[in-house]
């Protein structure tokens, strides 16, 4: 995307006034987005963005600027201006650039460009019909299909560069069901770091039916009971509990700022011994996977917790340097406009031994949380919440009534120790994670698990 000569020139301008590190990040991105609602294609839009972010460090300070262009003169000007933010004497210089290697190799089969707009339209209309045919209670279907083709290039003053072509496809289905005054919703998404072969991984019609089934099932929902109960958390999106209760607290920027309950806990038992948790950006075609992170480091599989013992944090380059650790390939950024920091990729609790049905069967009175609307955490205190969008009451080991949307609240370190069972049915679900105003793609995952006791945000005494 840029000549080696120019890369070196820019990196050296950035180092010129005494910076300890310099970096250039280039991104080109073309995207298409189609939305169906009210059984009509309401919106079809396309976007094109191109730009370059420049970063340098001196001491503990990071300086960042970007330009919406790749013109040589503009890049050089921006580098000079950014470099003038500091006024020391430069001693470092980049002489050679070596290309970084990554274990992540994928093949894209159906590029977005090769798929006709009419075919995308047909897919959305099929989703609409499938959902509405599923049940007459369904009064609205909103479906969004987007694809992006992206190229990135990162080079830094350590003399390393990397480049990557990224293709992503995202399909979401929102369904509204109504009976009398009761309105319920169902949501499902399919998101892959691949081309339109994503539809071979999961059929869009199945997605529509799954979302519809949730909305219709929830029409019978009763108010959730209030108080502390055993909670069985279903596979795939259930992994949001680990993402919130623990994952964010393991991101090294929180650790560095003394804003994590998991600081100074490496080698210590922080979870029940049946818990092993992993962050893995090398899982092929998954939504949170990549060849290189936003700093040009290869993707990686990082064991975070093994048999309940904390093994590692989630690092970007800066936090790894400051904490004297090895970076884990988790320096991510939303775009060339943003400074990277530690982020999860695909983060999950690994498969255990138990049969999921017998886990549910072991609960005499509790909640089964099947689908989720996301969550949030305060890493400094470990207090977290997550929203259940499809949940059921468990009575005498059997699933009974569905419950209305509710929030569960807990404390990360306490909840991890209360995990009493881990199933053998590991699965994943895609989503977006927001932190410091930057959104990145993630997957969460887990098998069915059981938490001994946690507060369910009920509306019934």
């Amino acid at each position, binding site marked *: 995307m840029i000549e080696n000569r120019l890369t070196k020139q820019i990196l050296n301008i950035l180092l010129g006034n005494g910076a300890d590190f310099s970096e250039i990040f280039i991104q080109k991105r073309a995207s298409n987005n189609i939305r169906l609602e009210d059984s009509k294609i309401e919106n*079809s*839009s396309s976007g094109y963005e191109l730009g370059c972010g420049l970063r340098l460090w001196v001491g503990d300070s990071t300086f960042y600027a970007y330009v919406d262009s790749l013109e040589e003169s503009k890049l050089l000007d921006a580098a000079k201006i950014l470099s*003038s933010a500091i006024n020391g004497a430069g001693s470092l210089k980049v002489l050679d650039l070596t290309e970084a290697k990554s274990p992540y190799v994928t093949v894209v089969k159906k590029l977005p460009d090769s798929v006709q707009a009419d075919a995308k339209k047909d897919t959305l209309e099929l989703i609409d019909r499938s959902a509405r045919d599923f049940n007459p209670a369904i009064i609205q279907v909103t479906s969004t299909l987007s694809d992006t083709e992206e190229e990135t290039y990162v080079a830094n003053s350590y003399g390393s560069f990397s480049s990557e072509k990224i293709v992503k496809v995202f399909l979401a289905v929102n369904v509204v069901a109504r009976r009398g005054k009761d309105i319920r919703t169902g949501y499902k998404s399919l998101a892959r770091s691949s081309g339109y072969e994503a539809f071979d991984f999961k059929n869009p019609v199945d997605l529509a039916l799954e979302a519809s089934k949730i909305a219709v099932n929830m029409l019978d929902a009763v108010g959730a009971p209030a108080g502390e109960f055993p909670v069985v958390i279903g596979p795939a999106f259930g992994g949001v509990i680990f993402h919130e209760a623990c994952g964010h607290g393991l991101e090294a920027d929180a650790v560095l700022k003394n804003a994590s309950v998991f600081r100074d806990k490496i080698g210590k038992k922080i979870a029940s011994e049946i818990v092993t948790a992993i962050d893995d950006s090398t899982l092929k075609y998954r939504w949170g996977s990549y060849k290189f992170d936003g700093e040009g480091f290869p993707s990686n599989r990082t064991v975070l917790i093994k048999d309940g013992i904390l093994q590692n944090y989630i690092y970007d380059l800066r936090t790894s340097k400051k904490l004297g650790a090895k970076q884990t390939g988790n320096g991510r950024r939303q775009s060339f*406009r943003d400074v990277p920091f530690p982020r999860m990729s695909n983060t999950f609790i690994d498969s255990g031994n138990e049969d999921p049905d017998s886990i549910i069967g072991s609960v005499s009175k509790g909640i089964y949380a099947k689908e989720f609307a996301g*969550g949030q955490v305060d890493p400094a205190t470990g207090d977290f919440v997550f929203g259940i969008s499809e949940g059921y009451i468990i009575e005498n080991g059997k699933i009974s009534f569905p419950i209305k949307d509710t*929030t569960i*609240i807990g404390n990360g370190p306490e909840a991890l120790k209360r995990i009493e069972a881990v199933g053998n049915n590991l699965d994943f679900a895609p989503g977006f994670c927001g932190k410091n105003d930057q959104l990145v793609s993630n997957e969460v995952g887990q098998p069915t698990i059981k938490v001994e006791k946690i507060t369910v*945000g009920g509306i019934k005494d």
Partner: protein
Amino acid sequence: MQDNKKMQDKKTYEIRGSQLIDICRDAALKINKHKVDEFEIFTASSVENEIEIFKGKVETLSFSDSIGVGIRIFKDRSIGYAYTTVLEEKSIEECIRKAVSNCKITSREDYNYLPGEEDSILKKKLIDDRSLFHEDFLDYTIESKVELAKKLEVLTRSRDTRIVDIDSVGYHDSIYETAILNSAGFCDKYKTTTCLIYVSAISKQEGDTSTGDFFGCAREPAGLDLEEIAQKAADRSVSVLGGEKIKSQRADLLLDPVVSAQLLGVVAGCLTADSVQKRKSLFEGKVGQKIFSIGVNIFDDGTIPDGLSSRPFDGEGIIKGKTRVFEDGYLRTYLYNTYTARKDKTRSTGNAVRASYRSTPEVGISNFYMEPSDIGFEKLLSDVDRGFYVIDVIGLHSGVNPISGQMSMGAKGIWIENGSFKQPVREVTIGTDILSFCRSIRKIGNDLKFIPASGYIGSPSILVSDIMISGK
């Protein structure tokens, strides 16, 4: 912190002014070579500074200067959209080509045409650049902004000995300029300045940790009250130290403005004509009905000089005024853009909102607020026999379903008995639904506070009766 003087000298801001209109005109000439019925060109640029301080030092200092163009094409009553951040001739041409081609698959609608005179309630602009753009903003050096953030860190830390860390202090500002030109004859621009500062404080006591944050926003740094922000952040952090889960029960809630404004934001989201017409709103068919038990007045007002979402015209060029959404507890109107207004045989309320040049105009709020009363906070508090003062909520985006109306979120605060604060409370949830929440509001305070969300939402403290709290 190194000396930024040199950078500052080179970085004096030049107002883009007519440059954005010129970009629109150039694009318009290019569109005229295509066979289209109508078009609209939206441009927006922003110059931003972002500063983060950690332990008295600059942790991150970033500069950005970005611009983008979004083009809406109308052809045979279908709309296509495309945007680009690259303004070179061939990129603009490609953008136009894509927008034209995107018309091919979108559905035909009789109401798909550009707004004209007849779509607007107002004929004259009620607010302009002079109140939205503060010239003085340009006089602040980066140094002075860094000092501001450093000062906030020191002030917050010094407020209470139990504050052990300031995990984030940030300052963010932007100069925003935008212009719209359409083939129906609209061509106008405006610009704004805004700055935001925030701090988050970690406090510790006997092994318990608590966090609390606060923020301020204004048109220029002089409008930021650092003393107040530091005090509030510190209070919000230490006042919940030692907090414990309480028994599940029903009780009255006294909501801090930061909390009530977030909940009001949920209500606002259900009032867009778009969500009503698509049958996704609990307020469908409720215009003219009494929604609140008490005489609540709620406005969407794009004309407040300090309002961060104030604007002379909306995302499709309709003049923005002040809309009374609830009057004396009755729902008066939904919020409209021109498309949804035509569908309901009414006129736009100037609520076409564009998140950025990346998106088409959707229906959204401007400055949306609940009118305060003259009741002070102390009076509200003294009226609570048994209740929960909610200082902060967590998990609003996952715990509130604006379509089904269910609201369930994590909360922390202080337990109230006989009109005075008792013990701190944490790790509980509060649960209700949107319509019940509106009906349960008993009293409104006088301490109106705005929060920047998607829009600028303002609420005083409010007292809500008989809400389920879930804890032990």
